[in-house]
Every structure is written in C-alpha cells, then in structure tokens.
C-alpha cells in the first residue's frame, strides 16, 4: 500500500490521461514558476548560516506548522492512503493513524528542548554533552542515511506517479522526470535555503488542503453529508460487504502480516520525532513557544487532512467501479485523481478534466516540496555536523559554512538524481518505512537519553546510533523488501531470512537497549556540568540562538 505500492504497481494509464496532459502540465508549470520566483526572492535575503539553515528563525508558529505539514504529507500519504482506503477500506484508515499520533512525541518531548538547545541540526543536540567529533559523525551519518532513503523513495515514486498521471512510460521519459524533480529541488535549496524551502512547503500545504477539501465536500454532497450512507455504499460497491469496514483486508492475512503491521505502527509513532527533515523545522521559529505552536498547528492540519482522506478513499470506493480503480493502478494510487474526475462530471467532461488536472498537479507539488525538505536536511547535516565540526574542527568561517552547505546540496541532489534514475524500475518505496525505522531506532533513543538522562555518555550515544542504524538497515536488507517476493526490490534474487518488512519491532528496542548498555559500560562518566547546562537551556531557553 501507499509507500510500497506507489512503485510496486505496474503503471497502467489513468483512463484518458493523455488528453489531460496539457492542462496538468500548465497547472504544474504555474506552481513551479511561482515557487521559483519566491525562491529567488528568499535567496536574496539569505546571507548568513542562520538564514540558510533556519530561514533566519523568522517564521511564525502558524507558518512553520503549515510548512511542517507540507514537509510531512508526501504523495504516499495523499495518493497512497486514499488508494489503500479505496481498495482495502478500514485497513487503509488504520495505517494513517500512526502518522498523526506520532506528533505527540514531538510535541511533548522533543520540539521545545531541541529548539532551545540546538542551532541548526539534530547533531547539535546529540553532541551537546558529548565528545563532538565521534557523536557528530554518527548523527551526520544517520541523518544522511535516513534522508537519502526517504529521498530515493520519493524520487522513484515521482517517476511512477508521472507515468501514471501523464501517460509517460518510456525509460527516457521516466529518467527525465526524475532529473527534473532533482534539478528543481537543488535550485530551491541552493538558492532559497531554508527560507525558500519553507515557502515552497507552505504553498504546497495550502494547495493540498484546498484540493482535499474540495473533493471531500463534493463527495459528502453526493451523500447529503450522511457518512453512514457513504460507508454503506462504499462497502456494498467494494464487493466485500461489511468486511470492508472492518480490520483485516490488508494487514490481517496471516500472523506474519499482523506482526509486520504492529512493527510498522511502532516505527511510525516513534520515528516521526526522529526524522531529521522534521527536526530542523523547529529551528525556523524564534522561540520554544513558537515551536510548540507550530507542532500544534501541524497536528491540526495533518489530522484534518487524514480525516479528509477517509472521505476521499471511501468516496472512491463508493463512486467508482473497483475494477476501474485496479485497472488504472493495482495499488489504487490513482483513486484520488479518478474520484476527482468522476465528481467533476466523469471522463470526457470538461469539469472532470479540470478536477483531474488540479489533483494531479497538487500531487506533483507535493513530491517537489518533500524532496526539497529532505535535501536541505541532509546537506545541512553534512555541512554543519561533518564538514564544519568534524573535518574543520569548528574552525570554518560562516561564509565557508554556507558555501559548503550549498555545494553539498548540489552533490547530494546529483547523487539522488543518479540513484533515482538507476532505481526507477525497482520497488524502492519500502525505503520510507526503513527511514522511519532508522529514525526511531537510531535517532530517537539518543535524543531522549541526551535530554533526560543525566548519566548518558558518548559511548551510549554511539552504540545507540550505530546499533539502531545498522540493525535496521541489515534487517531490511535481508527482508522481503529487498528480495524473495514478487513485490521486492530485486524480485529475481532470494536471500531473505528476516520475515518482516518493518524492522522496528526488533531494532527500536535494540537502539534503546544499546544506548543504556553503552552508558553503563562506559569508563568515562557523564559530565554533570554539561548536563546541567543542557537541562537548564532546554527547559528555559536561556541563551537560545
């Protein structure tokens, strides 16, 4: 589903996709032109490191809340969850909930202390009390691994999405799409820095919410705002009857798939507050109070969005023929654009064409904004954690640091284009689940121990980061995500022994355990003065930048 099947499915054209191409491209072109103008404007105000990494810390809580939502709601959420509900009913809805509940971890434990005690990256907080170089190296490595996996999944997803919606199926066409997405994200980030990227996220969030509101309203209108009737019609039309509204159609097939879903659920809830591209957003506001407000806005916006996907998904199930949804895309990823077309008057009508084009353009905008955020997170961490604080030992000037950040954006972006083009026919979308698992296993334990556990040491931090990172990557490498199943990345190879696609149920407890074990086995004791400073700064905001 969603993340997975976005790439898993064989591209089958949305009915009549080709004829809507000019309209879709025009709308998408408008989005690109508008965001590029804003990027250039933002770039002219980007002078020092705080501008590039943190948008000058000038955004309000509401603006940042919108931008967080824009960073978080990927095409997988929008098209994937709507499609999963359209085909599997309740289980698609069940999947969306972990993504929302997760924000409470960020709100209650992470956002404010992080804002108060760091400057630009997650590594700032992890390395606060520790030996700088080893911990920053570890934090930078895990940031880049998480972001690159996430980025690859999104880039490959972009290729699949475009082929679905525009009817581009040639190899060259897919590579061109991946390259276009990559070049645009490099431009946004190198020129606009965090300020430009934040505006792109905000615009995208507004468009996505507006598109979802419109479709939701039209769906509910069809059923006189009677949700029970909508559900009944969806269940009846799905051919599954009452089972469509009950758990089990997707995750309940056998004991393994149930355990896999539990593992995924844990990774989603604990991973969000460890995703580097989300964490750096908390530095774009002036105070911890504003960081709290931004998470509250994000919870409201993301929650409202997932509630609307229920109407979108069940609406698609009720109004479209199941066979049509599957014929367009096996995983249901085109259910949202198709239901938009239906609500506009059906295939062939002008209203249908316009609504289909609007929703497709919103989906492209969604991908662009998410990849820009991911690129910024990895280049910030590379420049600030690895280049300045490890390679240059903190001795670089601010000008050199910003230049390093811009160059690493170009390099990381180029690498993402190259890998994305190579992976265009592989099912790499499972890497998103891996990104959440790494974030929950490697990043979250270290963040929480650093902030709240007096005795935590450098060795604990290193064991936890590397242990969580290596265990999740290795388990995924030997899982059905990579080999052994028709849906695998390499479907012809078979070297899997770990039965679950989501490693979280093993790697997250391991990350926490290793952090504790490394600490109690340390010869060096934690520095109480450093903890005093971190604790006072993180709770009061004293001396916050």
């Amino acid at each position, binding site marked *: 589903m969603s993340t997975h099947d976005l790439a898993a499915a064989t591209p089958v054209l949305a009915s009549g996709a080709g004829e809507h191409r000019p309209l879709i491209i025009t709308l998408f072109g408008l989005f690109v032109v508008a965001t590029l103008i804003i990027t250039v404007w933002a770039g002219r105000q980007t002078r020092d490191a705080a501008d590039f990494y943190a948008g000058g810390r000038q955004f309000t809580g509401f603006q940042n809340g919108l931008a967080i939502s824009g960073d978080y709601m990927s095409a997988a959420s929008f098209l994937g969850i709507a499609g999963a509900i359209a085909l599997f009913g309740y289980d698609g809805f069940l999947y969306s909930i972990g993504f929302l509940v997760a924000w409470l971890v960020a709100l209650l434990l992470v956002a404010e202390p992080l804002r108060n005690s760091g400057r630009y990256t997650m590594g700032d907080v992890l390395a606060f009390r520790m030996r700088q170089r080893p911990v920053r190296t570890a934090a930078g490595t895990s940031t880049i691994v998480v972001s690159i996996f996430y980025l690859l999944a999104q880039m490959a997803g972009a290729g699949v999405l475009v082929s679905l919606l525009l009817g581009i199926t040639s190899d060259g066409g897919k590579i061109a799409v991946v390259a276009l997405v990559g070049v645009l994200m490099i431009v946004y980030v190198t020129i606009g820095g965090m300020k430009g990227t934040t505006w792109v996220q905000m615009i995208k969030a507004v468009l996505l919410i507006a598109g979802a509101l419109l479709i939701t309203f039209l769906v509910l209108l069809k059923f006189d705002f009677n949700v*029970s009737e909508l559900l009944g019609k969806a269940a009846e039309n799905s051919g599954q009857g009452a089972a469509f509204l009950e*758990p089990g159609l997707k995750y309940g097939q056998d004991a393994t798939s149930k355990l896999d879903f539990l593992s995924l659920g844990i990774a989603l809830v604990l991973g969000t507050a460890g995703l580097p591209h989300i964490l750096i957003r908390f530095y774009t506001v002036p105070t911890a109070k504003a960081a*709290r407000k931004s998470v509250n806005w994000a919870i409201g916006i993301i929650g409202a969005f997932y509630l609307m996907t229920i109407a979108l998904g069940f609406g698609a199930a009720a109004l479209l023929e199941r066979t049509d949804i599957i014929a367009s895309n096996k995983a249901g990823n085109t259910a949202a654009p198709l239901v938009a077309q239906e609500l506009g008057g059906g295939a062939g009508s002008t209203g249908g064409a316009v609504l289909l084009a609007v929703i497709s353009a919103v989906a492209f905008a969604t991908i662009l904004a998410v990849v820009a955020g991911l690129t910024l997170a990895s280049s910030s961490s590379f420049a600030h954690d690895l280049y300045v604080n490890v390679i240059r030992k903190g001795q670089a000037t601010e000008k050199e640091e910003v230049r390093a950040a811009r160059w690493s954006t170009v390099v990381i972006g180029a690498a993402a284009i190259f890998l994305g083009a190579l992976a265009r026919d592989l099912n790499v979308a499972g890497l998103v689940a891996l990104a959440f698992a790494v974030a929950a296993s490697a990043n979250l334990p270290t963040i929480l121990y650093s902030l709240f556990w007096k005795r935590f040491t450098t060795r604990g931090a290193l064991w936890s980061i590397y242990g969580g990172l290596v265990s999740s990557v290795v388990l995924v490498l030997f899982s059905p995500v990579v080999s052994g199943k028709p849906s695998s990345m390499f479907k012809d190879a078979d070297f899997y022994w770990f039965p679950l696609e989501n490693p979280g149920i093993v790697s997250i407890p391991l990350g926490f355990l290793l952090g504790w074990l490394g600490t109690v086995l340390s010869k060096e004791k934690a520095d109480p003065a450093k903890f005093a400073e971190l604790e*006072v700064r993180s709770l009061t905001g*004293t001396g916050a930048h």
Partner: protein
Amino acid sequence: MTTEAAPPPGGAGTSAASPTAEEFEAVQRSPEFAALRSSHRSFAFPLTVAFVAWYLLYVLLSNYAGGFMGTRLFGNVNVALVLGLGQFATTFLIAWLYARHAAAKLDPKADAIKARMENGR
C-alpha cells in the same frame, strides 16, 4: 574527558554574556528549576506512556480482535471506526491539554529563570 579540545557547547559560539558553568549548575540545583522540571516531567512522561499504550491497544485490537472491532454501533459505523476516530480525538485533546498546561505552568517558570540568568544574575 578527552584530549580533544572541547568546542563550545553544541559547537555553537555562545554570546559574551552567556552564563558560566557554575551558574548553570547552581540554577539546576535551585528549587525554582526543580519545580519547572517536575511540572514538565510529571505531565509529559505519564501522558506519553498513556497515548503510546492507547495507540498500541488500538493496533492490537485491530490485529487480533476483528470480531469485536466489527461490532456495529449505529448505521454502518462499527467499533473499529469509532476507536480510530477516537485516536484522532485523543491526539487533538492531548495537544490542546499540553498547550494549556505549558502556557499556565511551564512558560512563567521558564521565563523567570531565563530572565534572571540572562539579565539579573
């Protein structure tokens, strides 16, 4: 510690007026700070355990109690849907409760300590 020269905290250049290590330790030991810390922890920690447990309960019920979850309550709305919407409701509720708690109990304490450390001393 180590032989490495320790850079300033967080690798960040702290401003000239920033408090010393002794001042941070003194504040950390102060009753005002203890009150701030306990207002945060006694609220955030139990609530985190509660919402994670409530989410896991929901996932486990969906996984292993399909019959119960499929019980119809009214119209076509069953227990599973109501509990799922309940997750939305509790998430919104906890976010609101925390914002209220922080504004009333945390911000004034934190601001007072910060003001004293940065200006008064």
